[in-house]
């Protein structure tokens, strides 16, 4: 047993995928030219007022539902007061006393087990602008100012960096599932700060150290591991942990002090007088409930149960909501679940990767996929042809059946169509037929070669082999009788 117990909590900020900012009607977008998505409201002009975006509230309540929070029936915005140039009003509209959600829990897989962690609260707020430091000047871009941000604060329930990393990945999958965030950590749509304290076993929480600049879930794991080592060493030497904020330096693979204690911040929270409290009515809550889909954790388990998918396949299919929905449409259309899953994880993923495309934007609709799988399942085409058809669908935006007709794939594959060729070959090579009957693989190979030579490339060798075997043995019982 390790001498120290670790307590890690996360503060996660996600950019909600609303079309407009949270308190004004400016476009909410990443990567536009500086100060093009701004208006008097998000620039903090005199006389303007915030107007809360209902869609942002809906998304916040969706996350609250998915995280099993106690949802507020009277949620209040508050002003958090501090001066900083990236914040136009010099207060941030956030939430404090009555956030959208409190409490709540979430289960995820880590280290082969299921772990449950709990939340402090989730609250809706506005983001700040961006500052670019340029020599003696700082350049300000307010495109991001006022975009909707949902902050999710966990309790210090993680006991290792690995757990935090696994949670973050599961959480990322969840918000993408909900369609409320694209989960892009590099672009900052999903940001994470961590706090960590360690203490001798059974002694409870230690002194909290905050770690910032964690731009990927990997960094979270590494930073937590580093902090554990650093703090454990200090404690072993009889030192005390200093309450501070540290930054993860990926280059140096270590955390570094940013500031010690809070520089006497006093945020002076008070209810935002410009925004009356939001009290969700039945219609709103029903809309929220309807918009929350089956969550990935449960869907994966169901895929295993219902369709007999292996854990690996179920994990892959359930990972993205679009993919999982796509899969289930295919199955509803009559495609074989296991085969469809295999194809999606294998050939489809490979072809998409080659094209640097994703399933959602491709010409492969779930109906086309189902059609393809049914063609394969019925034996009308074989895997080689299936791969070729898939490529053509992706490139030419056509249905598999039409492609097969156009390319004359199906005719040669058909057992019936192969019939006359097989008959011809068999009657021309009676010797070989007898040898096949005696079990000669060489003779069978010879006959197959003859059939394929006549029938052409499109013929499925497996099918030809089976037809030949059937044909050779069909003749034998008659003779024996």
């Amino acid at each position, binding site marked *: 047993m390790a001498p120290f117990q670790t307590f890690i909590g996360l503060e996660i900020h996600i950019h909600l995928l609303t*079309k*407009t900012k949270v308190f004004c009607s400016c476009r909410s977008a990443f990567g536009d030219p*500086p100060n093009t998505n701004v208006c008097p409201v998000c*620039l903090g002009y005199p006389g303007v007022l915030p107007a809360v975006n209902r*869609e942002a509230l809906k998304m916040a309540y969706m996350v609250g539902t998915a995280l099993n929070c106690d949802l507020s029936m009277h949620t209040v915005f508050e002003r958090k007061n501090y001066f900083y140039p990236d914040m136009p009003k010099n207060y941030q509209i956030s939430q404090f006393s009555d956030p959208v959600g409190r409490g709540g829990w979430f289960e995820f897989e880590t280290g082969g087990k299921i772990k449950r962690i709990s939340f402090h609260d989730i609250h809706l707020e506005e983001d700040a602008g961006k500052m670019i430091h340029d020599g003696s000047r700082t350049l*300000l871009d307010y495109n991001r100012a006022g975009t909707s941000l949902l902050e999710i604060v966990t309790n210090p329930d993680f006991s290792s960096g690995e757990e935090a990393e696994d949670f973050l990945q599961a959480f990322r999958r969840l918000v993408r599932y909900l369609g409320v965030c694209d989960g892009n950590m590099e672009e900052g749509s999903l940001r994470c700060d961590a706090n960590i304290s360690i203490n001798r076993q059974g002694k409870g929480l230690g002194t909290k150290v905050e770690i910032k600049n964690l731009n990927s879930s990997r960094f979270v794991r590494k930073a937590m591991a580093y902090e554990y080592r650093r703090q454990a060493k200090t404690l072993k030497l009889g030192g005390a942990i200093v309450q501070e904020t540290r930054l993860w330096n990926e280059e140096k693979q270590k955390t570094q002090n940013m500031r010690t204690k809070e520089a006497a911040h006093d945020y002076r929270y008070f209810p935002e007088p410009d925004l009356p409290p*939001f009290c969700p009515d039945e219609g709103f809550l029903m809309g929220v409930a309807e918009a929350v889909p089956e969550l990935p954790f449960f869907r994966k388990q169901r895929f295993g149960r219902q369709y007999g998918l292996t854990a690996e396949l179920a994990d892959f299919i359930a990972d993205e909501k679009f993919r999982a929905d796509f899969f289930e449409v295919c199955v509803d259309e009559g495609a074989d679940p296991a085969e469809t899953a295999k194809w999606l994880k294998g050939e489809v993923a490979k072809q998409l990767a080659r094209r640097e495309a994703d399933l959602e934007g491709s010409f492969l609709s779930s109906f086309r996929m189902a059609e393809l799988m049914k063609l394969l399942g019925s034996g009308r085409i074989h895997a080689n042809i299936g791969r070729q058809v898939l490529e053509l669908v992706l490139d030419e935006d056509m249905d598999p059946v039409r492609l097969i007709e156009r390319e004359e794939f199906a005719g040669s594959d058909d057992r019936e169509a192969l019939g006359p060729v097989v008959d011809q070959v068999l009657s021309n090579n009676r010797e070989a037929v007898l040898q096949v009957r005696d079990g000669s693989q060489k003779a069978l190979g010879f006959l197959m070669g003859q059939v394929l030579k006549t029938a052409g490339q499109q013929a499925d060798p497996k099918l030809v082999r089976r037809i030949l075997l059937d044909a050779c043995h069909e003749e034998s019982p008659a003779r024996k009788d």
Partner: protein
Amino acid sequence: MDIEELKTTARLAMLELHEDEAAELAAIAELAAIAELAAIAELSAAVSGMLENFSLMQKVDISGLEPTTHALSEQNSGREDVIVSAESSGKTDNSGKAEAYNLNNPENLIERAPEYDNNHIVIPNVL
């Protein structure tokens, strides 16, 4: 209000209150001189006078009272998530309805900054 509190408050409010002025103020406050004070001392006296008035509120029994944070007990129903851009706004709506405000004209707005460069607003370095 004592000088330390005044200094802390001024710092939070980003109002200038020089160290030496504060010291001077402390001296004046001790003498309790009211007349002919420097502007800053006058401010301090005014703050103290108002706080004394505020202390009247201590007389009220507030047990069981909920705070009133908004004048009307209105609820917020929120706004539609629809982009209003420079193109879609700027039209004058003769009915006086609120959709038509020409709020989005970014270049125009950035030009109101005391210093700007290439559509960035410029300030002395923050670091």
